[in-house]
C-alpha cells in the first residue's frame, strides 16, 4: 500500500510522555468562587456556561469562597476528611496485599477520594448508587464494614458475593450500592431506569451513577442521557474525568475538542464541570444536582475534573505511558491535603490530629486485614462451599444445572 501525503487523520497525543517533566501549564484553572451558581430550576439552556466553567470553593489559601460554598459544619467536614483518609489507607493496604500476592487484583482511588466521599455525603443514604471503579470511598462513607470489603476481595468464606465476583466489584443491597460492572457505562441506563421506577413509585429516593471519561464513548452514555432527558429522570450522572482511561489520555476520549460536561448541552441537560479534588465543590455540585432530581426538575451531568493518581489497576504500569509522579504536579492538588489545610486554617483540626487519625486508620486496616484472612485466604480458602456456586443462577435451580452439578461431583 502506498500512502498519499496529507491523507492521515489526526491522532490526539498527550503533551507529556515517560521521561518528560510533568507540565499542566495548558490547563486553565479558574479562581475558586469564580463560577456562578444558578438556581436549581434554571433551564439547561441558561447554564451552558457552566459546562466550560469549574465549580471550585477552596481557594489557594484553603479558604472556602464564592456562591458554591455549601456552608458545612466543621464536624461534617471532619467526617468527610476522616473518611477520605480511611479510604486512602484502605487502598494502600490492599495494594500492598496485592503486591505480596495475597490479592489478585486491585484498583486504588488515590487522588479521587473526594469524588466519592463528598458525593456520598451530599446524597441521602437510601439513594441508589451505580458506581464505577473508583468509588470505594462512597461505600466506606456509607458504613460498609471494611472487613467485608476485604473478604470480598479475597473471596473467602465471608465474601458476601460468595466467590463469584472479581475483587473490588462490590455489591451491597444493604448499602443501596449496585454491583460494579466490567462492561463500561452499562450502569448509566440502569441508574436512569432505577430513578424512573423510583419516581413512578412516588418515592423521594434518587439514583446516582459514575463513569469515567473514557466510557463516555460508549453507546450507553448516549442512550442514558437521552432517556434521562426525555423523562426528566431524578438522577445525578457523574462523569469522572481523571485524565486517563488505562493508558489512553482523555483526548482520545473526545476531551480535546470540548469539555465532557459540554456533552450534556445537546441533550438539554445541565452539564457542570467540578473541581474533583475540592471536597466542598463536589459536595455542593452534587447537592445542587440532587436537589434538581429530588424536586423532579430533571437530571444533571457532572464532569468531575480530577487526576488518577495511581495506575488504572494492578495490571498496568503508568511509567510506560506518562511521566513519573505526574499526579504531584496536578494543578488542583490533593483532595485530602486541601480539606485538611482548610480545617487547620480555621482551627478545627491540626496536623497532629490528622497524623493521629491517619495512624489509627493504618492500624485499623492492618488489624482488619488480619481478622479478614482469619476467615480464609485467596490461595488456601476456605471459600464459599462449592455447591453454592450453582445457586442464584436462577431463583430455583433448573434440572439441567442440577445434573451438571452432580456430574461435577458436587
Amino acid at each position, binding site marked *: 500500500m502506498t500512502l498519499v501525503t496529507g491523507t492521515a487523520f489526526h491522532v490526539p497525543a498527550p503533551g507529556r510522555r515517560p521521561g518528560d517533566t510533568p507540565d499542566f501549564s495548558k490547563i486553565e484553572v479558574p479562581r475558586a468562587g469564580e463560577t456562578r451558581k444558578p438556581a436549581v430550576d434554571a433551564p439547561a439552556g441558561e447554564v451552558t456556561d457552566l459546562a466550560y466553567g469549574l465549580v471550585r470553593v477552596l481557594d489557594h489559601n484553603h479558604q472556602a469562597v464564592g456562591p458554591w460554598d455549601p456552608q458545612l459544619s466543621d464536624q461534617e467536614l471532619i467526617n468527610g476528611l476522616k473518611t477520605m483518609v480511611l479510604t486512602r489507607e484502605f487502598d494502600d493496604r490492599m495494594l500492598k496485599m496485592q503486591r505480596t500476592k495475597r490479592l489478585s487484583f486491585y484498583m486504588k482511588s488515590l487522588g479521587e477520594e473526594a469524588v466519592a466521599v463528598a458525593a456520598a455525603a451530599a446524597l441521602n443514604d437510601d439513594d441508589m448508587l451505580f458506581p464505577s471503579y473508583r468509588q470505594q470511598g462512597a461505600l466506606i462513607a456509607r458504613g460498609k464494614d471494611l472487613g467485608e470489603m476485604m473478604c470480598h476481595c479475597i473471596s473467602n468464606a465471608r465474601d458476601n458475593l460468595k466467590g463469584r465476583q472479581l475483587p473490588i466489584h462490590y455489591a451491597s443491597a444493604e448499602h443501596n450500592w449496585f454491583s460494579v460492572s466490567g462492561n463500561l457505562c*452499562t450502569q448509566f441506563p*440502569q441508574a436512569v431506569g432505577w430513578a424512573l421506577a423510583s419516581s413512578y413509585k412516588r418515592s423521594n429516593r434518587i439514583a446516582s451513577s459514575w463513569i469515567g471519561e473514557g466510557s463516555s464513548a460508549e453507546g450507553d452514555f448516549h442512550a442514558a442521557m437521552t432517556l434521562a432527558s426525555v423523562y426528566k429522570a431524578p438522577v445525578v450522572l457523574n462523569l469522572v474525568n481523571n485524565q486517563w482511561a488505562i493508558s489512553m489520555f482523555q483526548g482520545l476520549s473526545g476531551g480535546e475538542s470540548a469539555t465532557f460536561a459540554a456533552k450534556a448541552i445537546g441533550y438539554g441537560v445541565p452539564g457542570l464541570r467540578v473541581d474533583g479534588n475540592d471536597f466542598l465543590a463536589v459536595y455542593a455540585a452534587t447537592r445542587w444536582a440532587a436537589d434538581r432530581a429530588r424536586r423532579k426538575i430533571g437530571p444533571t451531568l457532572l464532569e468531575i475534573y480530577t487526576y488518577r493518581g495511581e495506575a488504572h489497576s494492578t495490571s498496568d504500569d503508568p511509567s510506560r505511558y506518562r511521566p513519573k509522579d505526574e499526579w504531584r504536579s496536578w494543578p488542583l492538588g490533593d483532595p485530602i491535603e486541601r480539606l485538611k489545610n482548610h480545617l487547620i486554617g480555621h482551627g478545627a483540626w491540626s496536623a497532629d490530629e490528622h497524623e493521629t487519625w491517619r495512624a489509627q486508620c493504618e492500624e485499623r486496616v492492618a488489624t482488619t486485614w488480619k481478622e479478614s484472612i482469619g476467615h480464609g485466604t485467596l490461595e488456601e480458602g476456605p471459600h464459599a462451599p462449592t455447591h453454592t456456586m450453582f445457586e442464584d443462577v436462577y431463583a430455583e435451580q433448573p434440572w439441567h444445572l442440577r445434573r451438571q452439578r452432580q456430574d461435577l461431583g458436587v
Partner: protein
Amino acid sequence: MSSEIKFGRAINQALRECMAADDAVIVIGEDIAGAGGSFGVTRGLLNEFGEHRVRDTPISEAAIVGAAVGAAMCGLRPVVEIMFMDFVTLAMDALVNQAAKMRFMFGGRASAPLVLRTPHGGGLSAGPQHSQCLEAWFAHVPGLKTVCPSTPADAYHLMKAAVADPDPVIFIENKSLYGASGPAPQAENAVAIGEAKTLRAGTDLTILAYGAVCRDALKAAEMLASEGVSAEVIDLRSLQPWDKDAVLASVARTHRLVVVHEAVRDFGPAAEICAHVAEFGFFDLDAPPERVAAPFMPPPFAPDLERVFRPNAEAIIEAARRSVS
C-alpha cells in the same frame, strides 16, 4: 368471553390482567403506547393504565433494556417490547451481562425480573433484519429463561407465568401467529415455564416443535396418518428450561425423533435437544434423530425465496419418512 381468541389479543389480555393486579407491572418500548405496538399487542393499555405505566421510549434498545434492568432492581416488573427480535442485538449487554447475572453477582441479594417480548420469524417477507429467530442465543445464557408459545391460550398463560417469574424471561412471539385464533385460555389451565405439551398422541415417531412450526408439525402428522404413520407431536413451549422428561418419555415410546424449528439449523435448539436425547435416550432410538430447520443463512426477502427458506410440513414429512423407513 368468546370461546376463540387471537394470539396477539391473548397476550394483550394477560398483560392487562397482570397490570390490573399489580401496579409494579409496567410496559415500555417503541411505539407501544398510543400506537399499541407494531403488531397491536399493547393496544388499549395506554387508555386503561395511563402514560406512566405504558411508555413510549426513545429509539434505543440499549436504553430500554438497560433502564428496565434498573427499574426491575427498584422493585418494578417491566415488560419490555423489542419491536423485532433482530433489534435485540442493540440490547445484548443489558440482557446477557446485566439482567442474566444480577442474582448471581449480588450473591442472591438482588435480581432483575423483567420480561422481554419480541417477535421472531413468521415468513412476512421482511428481509434479513426483521425476520430472524435468535432464541438459541438466549437459551445459551445462564440466568435467562426463554419461552416461545404456539397457541393463544399458551401465550396467555406463559405471559402470566413470565411476569410472575423471579428471573428475567425472553418471551418470543412468532409473527405469523398474531392473527391466528385458538381456544380462549381457561384460568384453571395455567402453564408453568419449562412444561411441554402433547398436541397429538402417536406411536411411531415424535415430532418436537415450538412456536409457529407446531402448526406445520400437526399438518405433517395429519398427512403421515394417511400414510399409516402415527406421529406424536409435542410443543416444547419453553426452551430454557426445556422439558426433557416429556421428550425422553415420548421417545421411549416412539423410538424416533424429528425436531423442528424456524431458526437456522447449525447450533440451533434442535442440536441441544438431539444431543441430550443421544446421551440419555440413545438405547430408545431406532433411527438417528432428524432436524428440520431453516438453512444456515440470513432470511431472504423475496416471498418465493423465503418460502423455500422456512421449514414447512413437507420438509417435516420427508424427515419423518426417513426416520421410519
